[in-house]
């Protein structure tokens, strides 16, 4: 076998990657660089093509066109069992007839490595499963099985480790724990992790780069903080966290700001935070960036964008209160307000919502909506 031991970590490049099943295009002309050693998350709803992309990188699915490069090496046509890429499968796919030790040793044995004991034991140490070596997978808890799946893949020192919804089968508490655990393991081994998930919170907590996928295309890519702060499409604005959106059109500029009129009101936002500089667009703002005050309050700073409405729902969640406010033109906006004072707004109260222009973002109006 020609697979190198402890192969050097290299960039993963996807070039013009397309996968179609009959008329259905699962992955639509995807070009992407995943830097060596990064923790990369492919985030999207089910059916967006993220798992198909992963399977193409693993070699389990053949691209309709395009190339997959690992460093300078083109691995597009390489068989899965020859690629320096290993996968942590959804629901783990541990071999039920082999014990934990043999599951982890599987890859080494297939590559003809003679003495596997030391390596396997080290790996089991890393995932803290040493005492479980002779158990069968069915006798392990979900979290333990998950760690076996990681160990079984990592022991081969892959250039890239692919994780297909690895935490999907775990309960919330365990998931949190494993998120931290996976980060720790990645720090320790330094391998590139490509993590596919539909859980935006998971993607944001774990990854240093997140790519949001929708309908076979990448909508936006970048560090989680950046994407969250400045979503570039309506899909991203709502898939990664929540957003309040309103349709409007650019009516002018003021300095570095755009002025947008929407249903008789006028809003400003920094032009570099808008995808469009003229015509119709969507303006948006995150719920926690909004402030809510009584309609007659005089505390609203002049520079703030503002709109008025009536409280239709208020749910107290402890740290914060989540309001739903019906705006005068009939949209429902969502507001998270920190509970700094005890006086809450009541159902039916007339209120004013306001926020700083620099928290606003401008988006293209999506086709058909």
């Amino acid at each position: 076998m020609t697979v190198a031991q402890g192969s050097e970590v290299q960039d993963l490049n996807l070039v013009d990657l397309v996968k179609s099943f009959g008329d259905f295009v699962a992955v639509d002309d995807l070009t992407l660089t995943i830097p060596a050693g990064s923790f990369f998350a492919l985030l999207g709803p089910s059916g967006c093509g993220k798992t198909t992309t992963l399977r193409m990188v693993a070699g389990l699915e053949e691209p309709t066109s395009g190339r997959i490069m690992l460093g300078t090496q083109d691995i597009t046509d390489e068989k899965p069992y020859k690629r320096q890429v290993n996968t942590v499968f959804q629901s783990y796919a541990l071999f039920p007839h082999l014990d934990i030790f043999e599951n982890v040793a599987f890859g080494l044995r297939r590559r003809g490595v003679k003495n596997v004991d030391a390596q396997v034991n080290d790996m089991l140490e890393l995932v803290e499963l040493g005492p479980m070596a002779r158990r069968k997978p069915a006798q392990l808890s979900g979290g333990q099985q998950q760690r076996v799946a990681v160990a079984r893949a990592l022991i081969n020192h892959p250039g890239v480790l692919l994780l297909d919804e690895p935490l999907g089968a775990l309960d919330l508490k365990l998931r949190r724990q494993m998120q931290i655990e996976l980060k720790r393991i990645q720090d320790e081994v330094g391998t590139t992790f490509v993590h596919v998930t539909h859980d935006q919170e998971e993607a944001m907590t774990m990854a240093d780069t997140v790519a949001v996928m929708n309908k076979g295309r990448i909508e936006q890519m970048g560090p989680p903080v950046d994407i969250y702060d400045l979503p570039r499409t309506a899909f991203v604005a709502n898939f990664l966290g929540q957003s309040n959106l309103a349709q409007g059109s650019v009516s002018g500029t003021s300095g570095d700001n755009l002025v947008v009129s929407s249903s008789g009101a006028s809003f400003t936002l920094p032009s570099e935070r808008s995808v469009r500089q003229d015509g119709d667009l969507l303006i948006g703002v995150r719920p926690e960036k909004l402030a809510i005050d009584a309609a007659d309050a005089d505390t609203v700073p002049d520079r703030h964008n503002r709109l008025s409405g009536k409280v239709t729902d208020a749910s107290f969640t402890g740290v914060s209160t989540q309001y739903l406010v019906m705006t005068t033109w009939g949209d429902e906006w969502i507001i998270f307000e920190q509970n700094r004072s005890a006086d809450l707004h009541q159902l039916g109260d007339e209120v004013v919502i306001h926020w700083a222009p620099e928290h606003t973002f401008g988006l293209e109006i999506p086709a058909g909506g």
Partner: protein
Amino acid sequence: MGWLRRNLIGIVAVLVLIYLFIPIAVVAILSFNDPAGKFNVAWNQFSLEAWQNLCGVPGVCSSFATSIQIGILATIVGTVLGTMIAFALVRYRFRGRSTTNLLIFLPMATPEVVLGSSLLALFLNLAFPLGFWTVVIAHIMFIISFVVVTVKARLQGMDPRLEEAARDLYAGPTATFRYVTFPLVLPGILGAALLGFSLSFDDYIISAFNAGTLVTFPIYIWGAAQRGIPVQVNALATLVFAITLVLVLSIQFVNYRRRRKLEKAGA
């Protein structure tokens, strides 16, 4: 009353199981009988004669051995051929899938008399000599369908990700089959083989048509029924039943114990 209502279904279930075992119990009890006449149908007197002298009646043990030989041969060939078809059906795309399914289904939907008589019609038309080999051929034919159905179900129940995981972990097609697919399907294949053997060993109708002058164990029993079945036959049948049951039950028991122990250790 409440107890009865709650446990009614359990009581019925146990009664049905008892019903299934009554005739077997009768066979076993009569193996310790010293019948009054030549027909061993009513209890007369306790005797160990048949057990001490299992092959004491001419033809009993030789027909028994013949049936075992036929069973083993037919099971091996039938299991191999059936397993191959099951793999093709589950793992490959090919033209003629529905014809194949029909060809597998039809022998199971055909009464044994028709299977037996049609094969006999073929052998007669070809003037093929009846005997050991015609019976083996016939048994392989009906075992195949049962094996295909059993192994196919097992294969379909297997998570396809397991094989993908193997390929991902540097196992080529051969290694994937050898280290993952085959061990996982093996219990299904063994189950199918056991079923095939018991079908072959116990088959009377199809064998009767195609055996010519060959005497298998069921054919011997059938022939003996007219003039009185020797007690040895009861003893042999009881022995086979007891051995298989003990074997199967101890496998179950060992599995159960092992699972219990590991569960305890894990807790």
